[in-house]
């Protein structure tokens, strides 16, 4: 009874948009697809919706070959990153549109639409024109239309990306509530995003996609704690995880003429060259630390992002207060060695502070 995709490939031009993607989505679960722009997220969702036909591979749902079923008979719902609504209809008519298309009774339609309006918090907006609504409200209408359909597969393609920061935070909170209350156990929810924070907050099963290929699958916590390779570590962190080329010997970790004590979880590592990974939030300003040069300092909200340089290495540190720095100023920082990741020269995870290894 699952939605199963096997070895799906889609290559409309020289590049793969999807490359050998397989998945097994179970009903009643939330799946997030994490990937950068152009990683194939939208293509994957459109393939599931039936808007694109893959060149290879199969999709089945409830034991039926999904590819043979045309879009309009698949009973899926999709919310786009652009706010797509029918401009010639008002809010109420927009939400009834798919229900009328399925020829439900007027009583049923009214009940479903009222319920959906309540869920997204748009009661009282029924007769508004779409053009009169703000971006956030427009996206709520699109979401209400998808919810009212009670589709078995609900696809959300970066639904928050075009909203401003505040609305995004607010709607993200509401999404969590809607997903936990408003969805039946019959529904598969697939949510794509570029934002690692969204993935962690929604806390579903994650698929990390890059250049059309699945890099890693697993629960959000697992992806965060044990990224299987450097790419995943970059994609699943914002700012991306810092990478420092270095080596381990019997006494120290060495990189950029810096020596650190070997943390406990590295004790059993072979002595050789590694790509060390460290999150921006595990780097602190410290008078007794190592000297780096500031290339750029960005203040974002109540945090300061420091882009630092030493030798050939460029790293980003996240300071949890607002501070002013001059460019090319020298600062001293300290690394939390206990949170170091080690990736091999093939970029695969060798050791993580959370105990994960790549085989």
């Amino acid at each position: 009874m699952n939605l199963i995709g096997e070895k799906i490939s889609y290559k409309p031009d020289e590049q793969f948009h999807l490359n050998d993607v397989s998945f097994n989505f179970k009903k009643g679960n939330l799946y997030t697809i994490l990937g950068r722009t152009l990683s194939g997220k939208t293509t994957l969702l459109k393939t599931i919706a039936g808007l694109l036909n893959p060149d290879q591979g199969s999709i089945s749902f409830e034991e039926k070959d999904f590819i043979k079923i045309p879009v309009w008979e698949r009973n899926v719902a999709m919310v786009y990153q652009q706010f797509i609504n029918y401009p010639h209809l008002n809010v109420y008519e927009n939400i009834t549109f798919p229900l009328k298309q399925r020829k439900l009774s007027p009583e049923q339609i009214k009940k479903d639409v009222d319920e959906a309006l309540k869920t997204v918090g748009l009661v009282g907006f029924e007769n508004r024109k779409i053009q009169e609504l703000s971006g956030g409200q427009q996206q709520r209408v699109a979401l209400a239309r998808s919810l009212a359909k009670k589709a078995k597969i609900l696809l959300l393609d970066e639904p928050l990306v075009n909203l401003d920061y505040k609305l995004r935070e607010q709607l993200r909170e509401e999404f969590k509530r809607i997903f936990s209350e408003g969805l039946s156990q019959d529904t598969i929810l697939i949510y794509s995003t570029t934002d690692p924070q969204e993935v962690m907050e929604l806390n579903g099963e994650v698929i990390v996609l890059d250049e059309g290929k699945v890099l890693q699958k697993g629960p959000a916590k697992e992806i965060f704690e044990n990224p299987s390779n450097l790419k995943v570590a970059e994609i699943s962190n914002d700012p991306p995880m810092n990478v420092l080329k270095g080596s381990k010997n019997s006494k120290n970790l060495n990189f950029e003429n810096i020596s650190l004590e070997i943390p406990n979880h590295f004790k059993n590592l072979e002595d050789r060259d590694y790509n060390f990974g460290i999150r921006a939030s595990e780097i602190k300003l410290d008078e007794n630390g190592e000297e780096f040069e500031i290339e750029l300092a960005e203040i974002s909200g109540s945090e300061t992002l420091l882009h630092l340089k030493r030798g050939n290495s460029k790293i980003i540190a996240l300071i949890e207060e607002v501070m002013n720095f001059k460019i090319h100023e020298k600062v001293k920082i300290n690394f939390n060695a206990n949170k170091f990741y080690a990736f091999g020269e093939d970029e695969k995870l060798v050791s993580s502070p959370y105990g994960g290894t790549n085989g």
Partner: protein
Amino acid sequence: MSKLYTFLKYFFITFWTVFVVAPFLWAVSTSFKDFQSVNSKVTYIPWLDFEPTLEGWRVLIKSPAKGGVDIVEPYFNSIFVTCTASLISIVLGTLAAYALSRFTFKAGFVRNNDITFFFISQRIMPPIVLSIPFFIFLSTIGLLDSLLGLVVVYIVLLMPIAVWIMVDFFNRVPKELDETALIDGCNPYQAFYKVVLPNSIPGLIVAGMFCIIFGWIDFFFAFILTFTEVQLLPVKVVALNSSITPWWSLSASALVSVAPLIIVAFIVERYLSKGNLSGALK
């Protein structure tokens, strides 16, 4: 500065209004004059300068046997040909434009843009080049000097305009709108007429207006492809001008010729500003 700007603004608006409206007023007044008041001296104000007469207007509906020119039948011929050809052009042109905007065609080296250009290129050719082929074509299928023949020719002339305007319009309607309609349970035909078409009304109106204007004002093909059975308004109006120029009936016929276009423009104007797509994609 802003005072000067306001002054210039109103100056040019006034200037342009006079520039556009004056010939109309002149035509209106001339249409009520007789031979004497046109040819003896310049006259402006009815009853004071000259004695108004309806003779110029009467000529237009009198039969030729009684010395009139009777433009009533050509008038309705023109309306029929223009409307029929415009309607068919809009229907076919819109469908063609939608296909060109949404589907990818490949035939040898030919792509969507080439097909669109092929349509438009029909209008790039000077009409004189088309006249002989059209003449031979219509005479072969026996439609020379007939309304149906004119409709066929006008469709060839008008459809490129419809395709051109509508392709551009559909390209600006987000593809995601059609996709959403498909996901919401419409088959492709329903998606077209339930979602895309209602949101294309401004485009359809612009295309329709251009078709009607270009169909209505065509003189060349109406002149070449008709003789005695069927006549269209522009040909008849020009034919009024014989050895003596009857300025009064020429003015009257010119006024009734532009009247439909002015009416269409007034009706259409309010729809043009109404529709917009901003709610589909912000």
